[in-house]
């Protein structure tokens, strides 16, 4: 799993209120990558070709989830990395930040139930040919936990049609929709395929102790892609 050659170096950003940054870093370590901590106020990224925006409640979710964090100084270099083909993965609050920043389409709204949901959810892999899902197979069913109050993905009918037609829906909730997301969307990629956001937490599903290791399929795919990008940046 760890392969040979240099480790994938992956930046993990901490915003004020992030709380899954440590789990993300730990999961990356277990998957053979080298997590590099980055603070939201940093104006430059370390020498990486991949970044994780972890879950949590950046800036207390004030105004709208992710709305304030998108203006953090570190978002400038992240925008540039994304534009340059680098890999960006936003988990939960990270997904919300990427939508607010315009790096991903759509918006995340309060759950239909108005309740915080915290449980394992079944997911279907819609696309196995992305840097974030290459270790999966198409239509594979995964079990990964969600824990959020504002995970209801919204896209108007025009945007939704565009996402569906261009195959940018990567993960969908299977069975009961935990938050009312349109078309049961749990994860999407940008048009170029190098930026992904998802509400479920793969970093909480890498150890059999917590019930499922399906998260390692997603993060492992990301680590593989990051390693390729580290050794051959031009190939991204």
């Amino acid at each position, binding site marked *: 799993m760890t392969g040979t050659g240099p480790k994938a170096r992956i930046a993990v950003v901490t915003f004020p209120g992030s709380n899954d940054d440590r789990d993300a870093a730990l999961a990356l370590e277990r998957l053979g990558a080298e997590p590099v901590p980055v603070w939201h106020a940093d104006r430059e990224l370390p020498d990486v070709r991949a970044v994780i925006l972890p879950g949590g409640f950046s800036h207390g979710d004030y105004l709208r989830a992710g*709305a304030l964090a998108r*203006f953090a100084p570190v978002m400038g270099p992240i925008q540039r990395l994304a534009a340059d083909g680098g890999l960006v993965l936003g988990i939960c609050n990270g997904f919300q930040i990427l939508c607010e920043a315009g790096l991903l389409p759509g*918006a995340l*709204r309060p759950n239909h*139930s*108005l309740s915080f949901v915290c449980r394992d959810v079944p997911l279907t892999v819609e696309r196995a040919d992305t840097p974030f899902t290459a270790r999966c197979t198409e239509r594979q069913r995964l079990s990964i936990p969600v824990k959020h109050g504002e995970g*209801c993905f*919204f896209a*108007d009918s025009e945007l939704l049609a565009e996402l569906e037609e261009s195959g940018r829906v990567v993960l969908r909730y299977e069975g009961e929709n935990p938050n*009312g997301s349109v078309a049961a969307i749990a994860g999407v990629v940008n048009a170029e395929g190098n930026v992904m956001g998802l509400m479920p937490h793969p970093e909480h599903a890498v150890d059999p102790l917590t019930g499922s290791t399906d998260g390692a399929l997603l993060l492992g795919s990301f680590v593989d892609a990051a390693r390729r990008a580290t050794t051959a940046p031009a190939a991204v």
Partner: protein
Amino acid sequence: MRATVLVRPKPGILDPQGEAVLGSLRQLGFAVEDARIGRVVDLELANGGREQARAELERMCEQLLANPLIESYEIELVGEA
């Protein structure tokens, strides 16, 4: 100069808070057809005339105070300094 910005969920956007309040109001016996919940932002602007203030407030709404995909906004200039 003081200003108030009203931010509302756009028509067609499901507003679970509004629905919950609608249900409670009906339970209390009020004949209510619909309820939508938005946000009020009261601002005290440091300088500028009305036109400049309005232009700045537009930019504040577009950049931060509202998410144009899901929310509409309305600007009210309250008074002049």
